[in-house]
């Protein structure tokens, strides 16, 4: 559904917040007019290592209002404090065009690793999880109701849970 949305806007713009993943960059860059990659995982790691919060990142997320057909957040929310995630959602609702999509993944309850992951898009839209050993970030597990409440400026249009526990949510700008 997310890819369908992108392919309906072949000249559109997608924001991918990382971690930078070559396979996904090629996948998305061949489907949209312009792919914006801003590795917020890497930036978050830098700020955490300096003992600073994510609030120092937001000024760099300086894209104009209504820039994107879609935003791909992957599991960034799992590595943010509640107020940081809320701020990110505020920025996303501004950056996404009306009817634009936002994709979010959340790890399962059993996940205890603090390592970040890439979700590499493989044949048949399969996602392969690949650890990013350089990106060690705190993990904040959230229940579906909490996530959906935080993302409430968006409308939830689809959600999946995988047997491995990962959850995938697709939201739409109202």
């Amino acid at each position, binding site marked *: 559904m997310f890819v369908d949305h992108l*392919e309906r806007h072949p000249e559109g713009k997608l924001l991918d917040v990382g971690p*930078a993943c070559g396979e996904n960059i090629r996948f998305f*860059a061949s489907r949209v007019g312009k792919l914006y990659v801003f590795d917020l995982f890497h930036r978050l790691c830098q700020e955490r290592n300096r003992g600073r919060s994510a609030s120092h990142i937001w000024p760099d997320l300086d894209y104009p209002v209504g820039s994107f057909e879609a935003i791909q957040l992957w599991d960034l929310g799992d590595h943010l404090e509640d107020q940081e995630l809320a701020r990110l959602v505020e920025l996303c609702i501004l950056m996404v065009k009306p009817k634009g999509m936002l994709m979010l993944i959340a790890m399962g309850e059993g996940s205890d690793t603090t390592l970040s992951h890439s979700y590499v898009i493989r044949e048949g839209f399969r996602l392969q999880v690949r650890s990013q050993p350089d990106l060690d970030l705190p993990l904040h597990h959230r229940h579906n109701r909490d996530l959906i409440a935080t993302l409430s400026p968006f409308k939830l249009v689809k959600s999946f849970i995988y047997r491995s526990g990962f959850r995938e949510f697709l939201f739409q700008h109202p």
Partner: protein
Amino acid sequence: MLKKRKEMENGNSVGSGPSFTEKSFVPGSNPGSSDEKTIIGEQISIEGSILGKENLLIEGSMKGKIELEEHQVIVGSKGQVEAEIHAKDVTISGRMTGNIQALGKVEITRAAEFNGEVRASRISVEDGAYIKAVIELERREEKKKAPSAGKPDLQVASSGSSQEPIALSGGTDKGK
């Protein structure tokens, strides 16, 4: 001014020092009419334009414009570049801010920090690289075709098995 010519017998890369040209650039590759490359060494800073017809490796710092349309530009791991690059192929392993236009491939390696725009036919990005970029690839119809299956799926790393996703809901939270 930019380089003194020198033939390298062993093909090893060079660390600091003045810029120069070496032979046998990359084994097995022949990116242009010449196998030679110019190296801007670690201790060299350049501001201005570079135009030419051979490959270029930057380990120093460079600010300006680089036009080597039929050749390769490499920003080495020690390189710091703030420039507009027009080249056939571009490899970034150091720090680069600016725009890249490549007729061929752009490679961003794990050590790279890249901030800018890329327009290229192909791109590769290694895990670990930091990028804040706008990427435009030359569109090819076959690349736009959807992969064979239609449903999303998730594979746990290295398990080799895939698992069908279960819909949590069609719009409401019935999961947890």
